[in-house]
């Protein structure tokens, strides 16, 4: 019986050695030989890319993998550290992954800056216990079953990324210990987005978390170096959306970025660096990115242009647009290539957007209103230009007209207000702003500037009179002195 048991053990041991030597070149890895018998992590490790590359357990855990004596193999003298904890985990990975020569030894061309990037990232900050970093390599990549990112089994394979990130980011209890104000519904929203739905269908190309946020070097959205910092968003989105080859098959244009960059919004954000200006996500959403529907366009634009949206929704155009299924704001202003609104858009000229639907024979009421509105705004413009010219004239003449100049700002304000009021498409309301506010100010400014110019000439004429009077007095005094001295001379003689 004893012999049978011994024989069985020898056979099992031999067969396991056979199996090991068949799967890995490191058949002499004594750690694996024993741990395989115990099952668990060794089974996972068999699938691990590191195991396949011949890296022993001791590569991470330390110890002497060549020794079959457990005490020698797992001794401190042999460098055995047991289960790595805290920052030691990432440090063990970095021992190879941060060294180019080491990676090349195993035939890998992976970048070697992941560890450095992780340390600089928001995940590289200290965790709440103050002893270790928030995220270690294994948090996302797992520990013993690490496979290539291209392998669908990898937790960082594009289809798995949302759930991997969501392990922490969708856990409200966990997240509130780090950032209580950060939302935890990103994954849920993502699943409603076009990106998320395609991802769920098994398409690895659409954007997932790492596509926009990066992988190892993830930074806070407020960090100017972050790919999702307001100024960087258009470029981040354009990496895919401007790539015609990459986007082939999705049947959407790839010129949005070019159009956006030339738009009033794009110039404000990309040229003037106004972080308050809208980027792609302001209209499309970020995690729940989706194109706004026809009726929701005014709601999207209205988040910033609240008054315009409100006036539009109360205007007769609302119903007409809905009936014709016209995309509200976009119909007149376009979408990505929104240009600065000028008075040329208003009226019945060829360039005016009103004339696309209104003419003398078609929709005539709107035609008349558009024509009148344009006349009002033209007269305010002309009046403002005249007032400015007169104020400049007065200034050039050295007159003090700063108060008038300041007052004229109200006229410009009225022009801006009129641009908003035009969305009511109500002639009376528009007239009240343009004539009641704007023209009243420009007329007062013109009067004051003219007074200043008149005063300038009054000063010149006044000076002429006073110089004449004083000069006459001088002459009179001179003659008087001569007279006095003549009398004195005649008295003396």
């Amino acid at each position, binding site marked *: 019986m004893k012999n049978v048991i011994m024989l069985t053990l020898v056979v099992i041991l031999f067969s396991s050695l056979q199996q090991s030597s068949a799967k890995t070149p490191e058949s002499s890895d004594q750690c694996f030989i024993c741990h395989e018998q115990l099952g668990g992590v060794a089974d996972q490790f068999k699938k691990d890319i590191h195991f396949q590359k011949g890296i022993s357990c001791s590569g991470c855990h330390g110890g002497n993998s060549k020794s079959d004596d457990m005490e020698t193999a797992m001794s401190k003298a042999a460098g055995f550290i047991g289960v790595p904890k805290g920052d030691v985990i990432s440090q063990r990975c970095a021992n190879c992954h941060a060294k180019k020569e080491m990676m090349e030894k195993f035939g890998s061309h992976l970048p070697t800056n992941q560890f450095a990037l992780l340390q600089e990232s928001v995940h590289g900050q200290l965790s709440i216990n103050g002893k270790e970093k928030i995220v270690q390599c294994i948090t996302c990549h797992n520990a013993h079953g690490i496979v290539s990112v291209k392998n669908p089994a990898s937790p960082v394979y594009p289809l798995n990324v949302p759930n991997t990130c969501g392990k922490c980011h969708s856990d409200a209890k966990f997240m509130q210990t780090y950032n209580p104000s950060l939302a935890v519904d990103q994954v849920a929203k993502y699943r409603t987005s076009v990106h998320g739905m395609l991802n769920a269908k098994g398409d690895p190309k659409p954007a997932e978390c790492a596509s926009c946020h990066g992988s190892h070097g993830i930074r806070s959205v407020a960090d100017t170096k972050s790919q999702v910092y307001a100024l960087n968003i258009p470029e981040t989105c354009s990496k895919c959306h401007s790539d015609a080859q990459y986007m082939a098959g999705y049947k959407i244009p790839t010129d949005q970025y070019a159009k956006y960059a030339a738009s009033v919004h794009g110039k404000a954000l990309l040229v003037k660096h106004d972080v308050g200006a809208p980027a792609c996500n302001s209209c499309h959403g970020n995690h729940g990115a989706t194109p706004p529907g026809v009726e929701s366009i005014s709601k999207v634009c209205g988040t910033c242009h609240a008054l315009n949206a409100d006036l539009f929704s109360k205007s007769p155009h609302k119903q007409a647009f809905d009936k014709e299924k016209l995309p509200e704001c976009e119909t007149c202003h376009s979408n990505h290539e929104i240009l600065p609104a000028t008075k040329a858009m208003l009226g019945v000229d060829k360039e005016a957007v009103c004339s696309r639907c209104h003419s003398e024979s078609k929709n005539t009421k709107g035609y008349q209103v558009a024509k009148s509105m344009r006349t009002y705004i033209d007269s305010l413009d002309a009046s403002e230009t005249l007032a400015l010219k007169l104020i400049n004239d007065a200034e050039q003449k050295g007159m003090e007209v700063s108060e008038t100049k300041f007052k004229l700002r109200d006229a410009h304000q009225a022009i801006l207000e009129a641009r908003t009021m035009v969305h009511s498409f109500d002639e009376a309301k528009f007239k009240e702003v343009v004539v009641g506010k704007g023209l009243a100010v420009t007329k007062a400014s013109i009067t004051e500037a003219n007074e200043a110019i008149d005063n300038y000439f009054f000063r010149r004429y006044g000076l002429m009179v006073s110089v004449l009077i004083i000069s006459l007095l001088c002459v009179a*005094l001179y003659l008087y002195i001569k007279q006095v001295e003549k009398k004195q001379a005649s008295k003396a003689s």
Partner: protein
Amino acid sequence: MSVMKNIFKKAYDYLDERLHLEDLVHFMGKKYVPVHSHSVWYYFGGVSLFFFIVQVTTGILLLFYYKAGPDLAFESIQYIMSKVHFGWLIRSIHGWAANLFILAAVIHMFSVYFEKAYRKPRELTWVTGMLMLFLAMGFGFSGYLLPWNELAFFATKVGSDIAGAVPVIGEPLKILMRGGPDVTGATLSRLFGFHVALFPGIFTVVLGIHLILIQRQGISEPLEFEHLPQKEKKTMPFFPNFLLRDLLLWLVMLNLLAILAVFFPAELGHKADPFGSAPAGIKPEWYFLFMFQSLKYFPAHIFIFEGEVLGILMFGAAFALWLLVPFWDVKTARGEKNRFITYLGIFAIMFIIVLTILGWVL
């Protein structure tokens, strides 16, 4: 005409009966002004007085509307310039008369210096005159800040910083000028007080002494004129001849002021912003420019001294020597010609002109 004469005569008789004006007329009638090739310089004292009177008059008128304080000063000046009837004229005349006052006073001072009119017995007249010149500069410095515009603010900052560099008394002097460590609203209130109360008070007293001394001692004669025989001395009566000529010149000056005020009105500038950066090319008023420019040429260190401090001390010493010239110019006091004094004066004028031009151009 005869009616008017009658009224004047009656008024004169009324006053004469009570105040004995006849004595005064007699006293003035006996005063004579020497007539020689340099007589023209005698008029600059009177011209300075005229500008001072203009300053007092226009200053009082401006006070009706001016409001001291960082929130009100600039706005009140803006109001004076745009809304108050003839406010622009009064302010422009005040600005121009201030400059012409100092110019006339400087010419008057140099004419007295070159004529050596400061010699015994007129030492005190010289000292009071010099004190008034320093006070006039004080008027200029304190008045410059009152419009509370950008230029005024930073010029005051630079000016008080220079004063602060004087060893020992510099820092307390700067705090006294500023009413604190920085130029603030407290500085404005303080300089306003100096400009409209303290300086005019002191000036009036010193001016009174100066005029009394002149009336008491009469007009100084040049050294050469003194040695002439009495018969060869040409003179003119102070009253009415010299006084009427003075009046004529005053009218010419009034005309000049009106023309300058209309064609080159005082500017308003931009309101001072203590947190803003100093505009480029900050320069003090022209009468401080030669000192400002000279200090730039001093090296950072001369032996163990700081260049700027040494420069300020040198100017201080030069002004002190100038003030005390009647007391150390013993040669002139003895009635002898002192060419050193003349050369020193020419050097001073050349120095001031060259440095002022450099300061203006560079």
